[in-house]
C-alpha cells in the first residue's frame, strides 16, 4: 500500500510538470492549429537560464538566502522565455501564417534544432548541476515520503493552472483568445487584434515553460541542453491524450501520463512475472495513449471545442 501511495506521489509530481509544458502546446494549437515543436526547447532554455542566473548570484554572494536567489532565477527564466516565445512566433511562424500547414511545422523543427545547438554553444555540453540551496525536508504520508520540493512543485502547478483558467475564462485577453481560437477572421472583424493575441499566447505559454523548466532542473538536480527534447515529446503526448487545444485536457493528460508512467514502471515487472520489465514504461504509457486515441480520436476532453483557447 505504501509503495502504491509513493508511486502515486511520484506520478503526480511528474504529471504536474508535464501538464505545465502541455499547456503551452495546447494553447498554441488551440489558436493556430500549429504544433510548436520548439516548445520543449523553450523549457530547456528556461531551466538553463535560471541555472546560469542562480549560479552567478551564488558565485557573487555565496551567503545569499535561497528565498532570494531562487525567485531571481525563476524570474530571469520567465523573462528570457517570454522574449524567446515572442521572437520564435515573430520570426518562424508569423511569416508563414498563410503558407501551407507543413511549412510552419518544418520551421518549428528548425527552431528546435537551432535552440538546442545554440544552448550547447552557450552553456556547453556538460550537465549543469542545480546548486544545493533547496529545502531537503521530507514528510511521511500514508507510509510514503513526500519532500518539500514535491509539495512546492504540485502546489505551484495547481495554482498556475487555476490562474491560467481564470485568465482565459474571465479576462478581456482570455475572451479575445477564445474568439481567435474559434475563428481568426471573425475575431479580426470584431476588432480583436489577432497578432497581439497570438503573441500573448506564445508569451504566456513560454512563461509556463520557463517555470516548468526550473521545476524539472530543481527536481532532478540537473540541466542540460538536451533536456527539452524528451520532456517536450512527453508533454506533447500529454496534450494529445487530453485532447489537444483543450486547456483542461492538457492538465488532465499531463497528470494522467505522469501517473500511468509511474504505475507502469513500478508494477509492470511484477504483474507480468518479469516477462516485461520496467524498460517498457514508455511503451506502456504510449500504449495507453494509443488506446485512448483509438476510442476517442480527439483525446479525453477533445470535443468541447468552445473551451479551447
Amino acid at each position: 500500500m505504501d509503495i502504491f501511495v509513493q508511486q502515486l506521489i511520484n506520478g503526480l509530481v511528474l504529471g504536474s510538470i508535464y501538464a505545465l509544458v502541455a499547456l503551452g502546446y495546447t494553447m498554441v494549437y488551440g489558436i493556430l492549429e500549429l504544433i510548436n515543436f520548439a516548445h520543449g526547447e523553450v523549457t530547456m532554455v528556461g531551466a538553463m537560464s535560471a541555472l546560469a542566473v542562480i549560479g552567478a548570484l551564488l558565485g557573487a554572494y555565496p551567503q545569499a538566502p535561497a528565498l532570494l536567489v531562487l525567485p531571481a532565477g525563476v524570474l530571469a527564466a520567465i523573462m528570457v522565455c517570454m522574449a524567446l516565445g515572442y521572437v520564435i512566433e515573430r520570426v518562424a511562424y508569423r511569416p508563414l501564417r498563410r503558407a501551407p500547414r507543413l511549412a510552419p511545422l518544418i520551421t518549428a523543427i528548425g527552431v528546435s534544432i537551432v535552440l538546442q545547438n545554440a544552448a550547447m554553444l552557450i552553456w556547453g555540453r556538460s550537465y549543469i548541476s542545480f546548486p544545493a540551496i533547496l529545502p531537503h525536508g521530507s514528510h511521511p504520508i500514508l507510509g510514503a515520503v513526500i519532500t518539500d520540493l514535491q509539495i512546492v512543485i504540485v502546489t505551484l502547478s495547481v495554482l498556475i493552472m487555476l490562474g491560467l483558467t481564470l485568465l482565459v475564462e474571465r479576462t478581456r485577453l482570455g475572451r479575445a483568445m477564445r474568439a481567435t481560437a474559434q475563428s481568426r477572421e471573425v475575431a479580426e472583424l470584431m476588432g480583436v487584434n489577432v497578432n497581439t493575441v497570438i503573441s500573448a499566447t506564445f508569451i504566456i505559454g513560454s512563461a509556463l515553460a520557463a517555470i516548468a523548466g526550473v521545476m524539472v532542473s530543481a527536481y532532478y538536480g540537473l540541466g542540460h541542453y538536451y533536456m527539452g527534447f524528451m520532456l517536450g515529446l512527453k508533454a506533447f503526448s500529454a496534450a494529445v491524450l487530453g485532447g489537444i487545444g483543450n486547456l483542461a485536457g492538457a492538465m488532465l493528460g499531463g497528470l494522467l501520463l505522469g501517473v500511468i508512467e509511474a504505475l507502469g514502471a513500478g508494477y509492470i515487472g511484477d504483474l507480468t512475472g518479469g516477462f516485461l520489465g520496467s524498460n517498457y514504461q514508455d511503451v506502456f504509457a504510449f500504449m495507453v495513449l494509443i488506446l485512448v486515441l483509438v476510442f476517442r480520436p480527439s483525446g479525453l476532453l477533445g470535443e468541447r471545442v468552445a473551451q479551447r483557447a
Partner: protein
Amino acid sequence: MRWAYLGLPIVSIAVATLLAGCGQGKSTAANEATIRIGSVAPLTGPQSHIGKDNDNGARLAVDEINAQGLKLAGKPVKLELVSEDDAADPKTAATVAQKLVDDGAKAVIGHLNSGTTIPASRIYHDNGIPQISPSATAIAYTAQGYNTAYRVMANDAQQGRALGQYAVTKLGAKKIAVIDDRTAYGQGLADEFEKAVKAAGASITAREYTSDKATDFTAILTSIKGKTPDLVFFGGMDPQGGPMAQQMKRLGLRAQLLGGDGLQNINFLKLAGVDAEGVIASSPGLPLAAMPGGPAFKQKFEARFGPIQVYAPYAYDAVNVLAAAMKRADSAEPAKVLAELAKTDQSGVTGPLRFDAKGDIAGGSVTLYRVKNGAWVVLETVK
C-alpha cells in the same frame, strides 16, 4: 514579400545543420601526405561531455605526433584526426562508420560506447580498417572474431566480476537490486555483475531497467524499495547515476549504491551533489594519479582542454598505439598496420599496452573507488 519569407525555414535548417556540423571536417594541408584517422564519440546528446573528452584525448596525441614529425617510408606524413559524432546511437554509429570508410580513413579511434562500437566494428572489419576503442568495455565487441577490433581498456567481464565479488564479500550484501540502462554497456556490465553475485551466494531481489536518456527513476526505485535490498547496482552512465543517487536519498532508500566506470567520474559528483557521499564505483585500469604517465598527462591535457572527464588518457594511448604500429609497419596501409598492431608492446599513460589474441588488453586491472567528502577515494585495485 511573401517569397522572401519562404526562405526562412530553409535558412533555419541550414543554420542548424551548420551549427550541428561545427568542428567537423577540417581542411588539410596540401603539400604533405596526410593520413586520415577517424575519431568517433557522441559529440551531441546527453553523453557529449564524455565524448568530447575522448576526442580531445585523441587530438592531443595526434597533435603531439605531428609536432614531433612522423615519417613513413622515408616521407614526412601528417596525421589528420577526423572527428565524427555518433550521438551514442547505434544506427548513427553505423552511418558514421561507413562515412569514414568512404572518406578513406586508415584507422579509427572509437567509438565511446559499447552499443555504438559493436555495430560499427562490423563495417570497419568488412573494410579491413583497424579500430581501437578507448572505452567500449562490452565483452561482445572483441568476441566477434574480428582481426580489426582492439581496445585499450579492461572489459566488463573483469569489471563485473570485481564489482560482484566486492559487493558480496567485502560489503556483505545479501539482497541486491540491479538496474541497467539497456545499452550494450550497461546491460553487459549488469549481467556480468549478476553472475558474479550469484556465484558468491547472494540473491538478486529486483532487476529493473531504464534508458540512457531518462532522468526520473522514482518509479523503479520505489518498486525496489518495497523489496528492501541492501545494495543497488546500476549499470549505466553518470547523467542517470547522479539523479538516481539523489532520488534514492529522497525516497528514503537506504541501500549502498554501486556502479561501474560510467559513474566513476567528476560529473557524477557534481550531479549527485551531497548524495554522492558513500557511493562506490569501479573503473578499469589504474586511478589517474597511479597511472605511470597520469600526472604528466593530466597537466598537459588540462592546460589545453580543462578537466579530464574520464577516458581521455585511453583515447590518447589508443592513438599512440596506432602511430607506433604505423611506424613499425613503415606504412599506413591498414593490412600492414593490423599485422603490427597485434605485436603491440609499449607503455602508455594508462599502463603497459599489450593485446591478447582477441584484441583485448592483456592483464588489465580494475580499481574500486568510494566517494568521501565529495571526492573519489581509491578503495583497492583488483587484478
